[in-house]
């Protein structure tokens, strides 16, 4: 990477807010090389994901669709779309989002509202999460996470934003997050809602909010989370099953137990690719939320560890981009996007290993699911774009 003059460093004494809101005010920055190592890690995760989606879903696909390649084909198409989107965004300079941020958040909220409307939102598995465009379906909560990160990066890096204050600094983003959380919860999709809230808090933290403000809010939020858990029958059961899955092994503890069975069966080196037994319809959501369990079963500890190492590498590169970001906005944006992806990874692996209660969060890059994949790759595209303008 080329050295930049010290004068060009974006972090000035005036605070994290950019000196100018408009792109025209930005100094001329020459684009550096892209962080290809991050790209490689993502491609590796994506490739492994496609293979594992096929392996995990083949039996189920054969059973339900009489086509073992049903999910593979779809995931491959989504991956291509996602890679295309990533390439586009990689070459779309990040500062344009500052202008687009308000529009993005409005569009996202509109979609979140729309999906709840009968006739627009499609119901599947008891949840109204999808909006259909012909053969394609969109899960509005996926772009919502990204939109939230972009908007908060814009908001918190805006000139004179009083991040250190509570009512004018910390509270507005939290209220926005809660609003989106409430909308997503209507689908209902607690997992994505929590991801949004998690991302919101991480962005506030990154932007320099006072720790005790955040801790106070979290302290206030915990009873709310428990209320959300215990007001809904299935959430309560899931939570109790997390505490003791073996209390009801054929009922609420079933998912966790089957997931642990898969991981346990894998042992150090796994049963071998394609040799999972738990995918024979024992483990539900084997190709989506529980794909990590199938990885653990077929590829063993070695395969599962590889996934964790790749996410660690992703974290390193992602936060490195944030630390070396050219300005406050890009710093917050890259920090938020990296955190958003990692929150999902941590929670997903936590659920699969029985460390956290079941929340229904996909594993980024690996789980089957078009919207998730496309928008995760889009986020990577933004990160890669910022990486070109990193210093040091």
């Amino acid at each position, binding site marked *: 990477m080329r050295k930049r003059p010290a004068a060009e460093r974006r972090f*000035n004494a005036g605070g994290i807010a950019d000196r100018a809101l408009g792109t025209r005010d930005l100094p001329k920055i020459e684009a550096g090389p892209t962080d290809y190592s991050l790209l490689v890690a993502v491609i590796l995760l994506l490739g492994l994901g496609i293979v594992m989606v096929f392996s995990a879903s083949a039996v189920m696909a054969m059973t339900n669709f009489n086509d073992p390649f049903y999910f593979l084909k779809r995931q491959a198409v989504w991956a291509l779309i996602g890679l295309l989107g990533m390439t586009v965004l990689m070459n779309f300079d990040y500062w344009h989002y500052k202008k687009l941020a308000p529009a993005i958040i409005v569009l996202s909220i509109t979609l979140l509202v729309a999906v709840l409307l009968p006739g627009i939102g499609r119901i599947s598995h008891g949840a109204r999460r999808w909006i259909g465009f012909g053969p394609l379906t969109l899960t509005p909560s996926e772009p919502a996470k990204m939109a939230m990160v972009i908007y908060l990066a814009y908001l918190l890096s805006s000139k004179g934003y009083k991040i250190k204050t509570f009512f004018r600094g910390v509270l507005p983003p939290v209220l926005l997050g809660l609003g989106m959380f409430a909308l997503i919860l209507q689908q209902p999709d607690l997992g994505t809602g929590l991801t949004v809230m998690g991302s919101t808090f991480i962005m506030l933290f990154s932007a320099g909010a006072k720790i005790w403000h955040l801790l106070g809010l979290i302290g206030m939020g915990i009873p709310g989370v428990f209320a959300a858990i215990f007001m809904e029958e299935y959430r309560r059961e899931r939570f109790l099953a997390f505490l003791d899955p073996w209390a009801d092994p054929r009922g609420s503890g079933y998912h966790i137990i089957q997931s642990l069975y898969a991981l346990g069966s894998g*042992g150090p080196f796994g049963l071998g690719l394609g040799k999972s037994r738990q995918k024979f319809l024992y483990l539900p959501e084997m190709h989506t939320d529980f794909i990590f369990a199938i990885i653990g079963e077929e590829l063993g500890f070695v395969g599962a560890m590889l996934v964790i190492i790749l996410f660690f590498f992703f974290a390193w590169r992602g936060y490195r981009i944030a630390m070396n970001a050219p300005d406050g906005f890009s710093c917050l944006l890259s*920090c938020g996007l990296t955190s958003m992806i990692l929150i999902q990874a941590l929670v997903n*692996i936590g659920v699969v290993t029985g460390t956290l209660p079941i929340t229904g969060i996909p594993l980024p890059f690996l789980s089957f699911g078009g919207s998730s994949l496309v928008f995760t790759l889009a986020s990577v595209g933004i990160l890669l774009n910022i990486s070109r303008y990193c210093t040091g």
Partner: protein
Amino acid sequence: MPSSTGLDLRRRALLLFSVTSVCLFGLLIRLGYIQFVLGAELSEKALDARMQEVPVEARRGVIYDRKGRELAISATVDSVFAIPAQIKPKDLDRVALALSEVLGIPKDRLLVNLTKPVSFVWIKRKVDEDTAKRIRDLDLPGIGLTPETRRFYPKGNLACHVLGIVGIDNQGLEGIELVYDKALRGNPGKIVVEFDATGRKIPAATHRYIAPEDGCNLMLTVDEVIQFMVERELDKLMSTYSAKGACAVVMDPKTGEILALAARPGYDPNEYAKFPDEYRRNPVINDAFSPGSTFKPITAAAVLEEGLVTKVSRFYCGGSVKVPGATISCWSSGHGSQTFVDAVKNSCNVAFVNMGLRLGPDLFYKYVKAFGLTQVTGIDLPGEAMGIMLEPGNIKPVDLAVMSFGQTLTVTPIQLLSAISAIANDGVLMKPHLVKEIRGLDGTLIKEVKPEAVRRVISQETAKDLALAMEEVVKAGTGKQAYVPGYRIAGKTGTAQKSVGGKVVRDKHISSFVGFGPVDDPKVAMLIMVDEPQGAYYGGQVAAPAFGSIMKDVLSYMEVPPSSEEGREGDRLRGVGVPGAGMLGSTGAPQTKGPEEKGPEDTVEVPSVLNLTVEEAKRVAETAGLGLDVGDQSSGERIDPKSVIMEQIPPPGALVSKGTVIIGFRTLAGSAEAVGKVSVPDIRGKTIRAVADILGEIGLRLDVKGSGVARRQNPSPGTLVPRGTVIEVIFEEPGAEKPKTETPARE
């Protein structure tokens, strides 16, 4: 705001990275813990969860008689089961309807079973071959067949009270089946197949076959032929005297081995449910009777052993005797003056009252106890009862007097026979037992039951003297009808009035006879009891002839040489004052000459009557100067002259004196067209049980190899073979899709 510098932002990003790293590392540790530490356990549990079990029953051991003849075998039959998880709701109705049609079970009841939240449920156990085939052809989802073994008693009700019965799970419920259940049962195995969550087999699924450990085989001390002879005679008794019941035990007095044990009414253990439950009661073991005069040898043994009387001591009987509190009558109007031996011979109550009173309660009880009449014998049959006896503490002379000739006390038949056998065995009481050996499948000896002496009860001398006295009973006394030509038999008749609710009932009797022979070297001891015979009721009239008849056949079958010293011993006894000289042969048939009197022209070689019809066999036997007795297989059965002789006693080639009666055993179901040879049927594709039935019906014997359905047979179908030929049939599990359940070769 100095804290919100870019430096601060970087620091916070670094902090986030650190926290993320720590979380990832934590998850990695957790993952390692699951995959390494919990791995084996979870993997096993997961497999268990995916596995569904189909139980495989262990083959229950065979019960053989002492010569290796099968008395109880296990045949493979199919049982229908369901794995509810495999039946999709849309198929439920169809499956239930189809099953209902084939099995004749109401659909509602089937639906209850088919929807049970269990992994395995029986639909119908042990169905016949035809039903099994129809179920197999239907190929219903979630419905399967598994081979189970069904207990099969090829000899029908022969020795039913010894063998007992088994339940639907082949668990021993009664008899030897119960006592030796653990050895016979073995350990069940299972077939476990890995299924997917909707119950279909997973491709390349783990099939685990846990082979059952088959049960051990038992060899009884019972001899099928002797058992048959006894049962034949019991049937005759039942029909002749319209008796309520009858029982008999035959024992080797020197070893305590039970050679036969039978009771009437009997039942067919194959279909025991069709008989009243009380028919399964074994009076020999489970019931105590008033022994009556058959008890007298015990009193006699006591007084002889104690030296209170000698063989020549004299007793006077004037028809009754006064004891404090009562006058006791003899069964006769008065025997006059008689010796000890005569008193036994005459079964004189008055003499025995005297003996009892001379003994006194203490000595009396000492011998009753020594003969084992106050405790169970320990025979290997379930539910052994014990006789009832007055408490020795405060018995009055009248009690003692009455007990001396066997009234007011009760004993079980097995107790009584054991006690009498002690007299035959030179005074040593042996423990009766029914099992000789327990062998593993490969023939290895697991347990051998050795003769077990309980104690010496009386001296050898006393035993010998008593035996001679008891011989007089048969020679010239109340037991004359038990006489067996050519053999010295000792015995004692018994006629007891039954008491109901403590009161003696006049017209209800138990006639019995107990004895042994030959006296000089006892090989067989036997007790026969007839419960409530009609018409005649004296033991000498009812039980003694049956005893003699069985004894004759048994001694002949056991090839016991005729007693050479019969005359001399008898003379010696008579020399000491026993009247009745010239009794020899008085009831005997012409062939009862001592061997030393036999000329070579009197000895003939026994011809073979095997595989001949009864008509032909009779002709052959008569030509050789011998008789033929084909007996009654069961009472009242008309003998079909065309039925075929399966077995004969003595065997062909044996040298016997002219006039000896050959005993022939006929086929169980003689067919009209039966001739010497039969055509081997084609039994391929049939189950073991069906094959056993088919072959048994035409008099062929089955040698089972393997399990499942018949695949090959030797000789091949259509071959003409003599009846009784062993047909070797190789059985294999049907269908390649069925899990292999072949077990290691069975003996």
